[in-house]
């Protein structure tokens, strides 16, 4: 009986999936396409749809100096530090607020939310003064510190949602089977949280990877530039912006995010199945 609706649901879902894929990917395609074109082909009344006859000149410009590799190094250090610290701190905090009832719990949750609501546009000057006082300007640690505070409230909130989503009964059942509370948590709940950790981890990674304004004011020395700052060197109001360079640079900047996602995703899927087997 449920055969036909299920099949039509699948076909419908597939059609929507392909259309959504095309919409999502087109600007990305356009970026990659433009990265192989000359400036006069990028901006032209007749669009160049496929970069046939394109060239690698834009990529050559990118690698002409060691600035890209240096910025890549800085960005990787800042982002990895941010992500590791933020996920670790957020994870334990999320467990605390969703698995325990204690005084001050609600105020903690609400405070986080309010922090999340503060408009950051005007905050960077104060953050600069703070880092100056701590003597952390132009350092990876300083920038990571402000990034952690940027992603932490969000990460705790989202992870909290995921922890709450795992029924506590599962843990109770395990405890009845003789597991200790901690064991039950790590055997049962933790594997189920893996997708949540990936989702929030990717989010934090992208936030820190692409952040511009704070990096702009904190990292003013050339050898401390992050990737978005390096990318902005292609914009030049007085000499005309090098669109090809921007697109080639952006394409390269996006690669580590994708690699990060694939690696983490693979690990987590593996973790998920092994957890399920044990459970």
């Amino acid at each position, binding site marked *: 009986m449920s055969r036909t609706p299920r099949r039509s649901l699948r076909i419908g879902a597939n059609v929507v999936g392909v259309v959504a894929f095309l919409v999502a990917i087109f600007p990305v395609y356009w970026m990659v396409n433009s990265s192989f074109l*000359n*400036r006069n082909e990028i901006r032209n009344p007749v669009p160049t749809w496929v970069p046939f006859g394109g060239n690698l000149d834009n990529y050559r410009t990118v690698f002409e100096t060691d600035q890209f590799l240096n910025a890549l190094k800085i960005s990787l250090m800042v982002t990895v530090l941010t992500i590791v610290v933020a996920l670790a701190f957020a994870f334990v905090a999320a467990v605390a607020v969703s698995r325990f009832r204690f005084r001050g719990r609600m105020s903690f949750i609400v405070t986080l939310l309010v922090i999340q609501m503060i408009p950051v546009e005007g905050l960077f000057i104060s953050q600069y003064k*703070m880092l*100056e006082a*701590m*003597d952390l300007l132009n350092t990876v640690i300083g920038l990571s510190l402000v990034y952690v505070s940027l992603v932490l409230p969000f990460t705790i909130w989202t992870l909290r949602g995921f922890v709450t989503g795992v029924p506590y009964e599962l843990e109770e059942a395990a405890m009845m089977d003789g597991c200790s509370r901690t064991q039950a948590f790590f055997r049962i709940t933790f594997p189920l949280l893996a997708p949540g950790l990936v989702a929030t981890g990717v989010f934090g990674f992208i936030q820190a990877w692409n952040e511009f304004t704070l990096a*702009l004011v904190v990292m*003013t*020395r050339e050898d401390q530039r992050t990737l978005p700052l390096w990318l902005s060197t292609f914009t030049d*109001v007085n000499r005309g912006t090098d669109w090809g360079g921007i697109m080639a640079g952006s394409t390269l900047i996006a690669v580590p995010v994708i690699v990060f996602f694939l690696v983490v995703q693979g690990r987590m899927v593996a973790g998920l199945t092994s957890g399920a087997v044990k459970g």
Partner: protein
Amino acid sequence: MRIKKTLAVAAMATLATATLAACGSDDSDGGSSSDGGPTTADIRVWLNGTDTPQDARDWLKKTFENQNPGSTLTIEQQEWDGLVEKLTTSLSSASETPDVVEIGNTQAPTFTSAGAFSDLTDQLDDLGGDDLLQGFVDGATVDGKTYAVPYYAGSKYIFYRKDLLQKAGIDVPTTMDEFVDAAIALKKANPKPANFSGFWFPGQDWRNGATFIWDAGGDLATDDGGEWSGSLESPESIAGLETAQKLFTEASGAPKDGNEADPWTPWCAGEVGMMSTPGWVTGLINDPKSGCPDTLGKQIGVFAMPGSDGEPAPVLLGGSDIAISAKSANQELAQKAVALMLSDDYQTIMAKAGLTPAKTSLAPLLGDDEFAQATIAAASNAKLTPAAPGWANVEGSRVLEDLFSAIAQGGDVTELAQKADEQMNSQING
């Protein structure tokens, strides 16, 4: 109740950082003395974008280090994009401030009146005195004290299609009226493409639009005993704005709300008869990767926009200032670096790269081809944006972009000008 507790924690954190701040400033003061800083140091110079040619950078570093044994000079390249954010923060930090900075000439007044730069009045004569571009010096002067000096300038002039003017039987215009007529005639003579411009004039381009106001005897804003106010609704300004509207509606095919970026694209697409752009645009039109050197690149002719009196029309002068950070611990060495950047040798390198030098006497170094002549002619009657303390606010809120875009769409000029004046008045005095 609980929120109070959180605040208490936050307050304690503040206290902790405040204490840290006190330690920090003690440290950084240690190295400097009150008479202008240590005798040797590393002088950090911030230059923006790629305007300053590499030769000039090399020369500056080498010469400075030769003349000041033991000291070094580091040029740190910054971008125009985000410069105000960066200067707002870095210049206020004693430990991180660069010693010498380049700043856009329209951005300078805001920072000079805020006390971000050191007073250069005493050095002014040694740096060039009356030979310096006077408008730039005036723009950086507050209450008789000068805080920044010109670095280089650049003004726009007219690019025109030689073939199209010839075909339409139009001579190079020598007065403003002839210019407007030529623009309209060119548009009529070229019905295709539909977006062809006799004069390419995107709606947001108030920087070129200002020329028409000034030429008609009006002004963007006027200073009445220290109190600035918008003067777009004066009869003269209105007349200029009406000329602009005529060009927008009868001669321009550019987007009515567009900006003036990338002018070489419409030029190479054959959509432009005349346009007013900076001189370096030739380079991009004649670069096979960005322009069309073999086709329309060959048809470029240039002249300085003529005024109603037959002299070059007043055009907006762009460019950069240099200044010394007031927080710099190395005032004396920084002054030496600035002196080198205004020296004839250095400015000659700048002029050879096509930048209008900071000293009027060096202008002939630009050369004598038609581009150089147009540059010199345009600069001869160039004007600056009002030196009002709040001018950056006016630009920041984009009052003028909105005004010209609305005029381009055929709005009522008098009404729009009144509205723009009103908005300007609430911001222009800082």
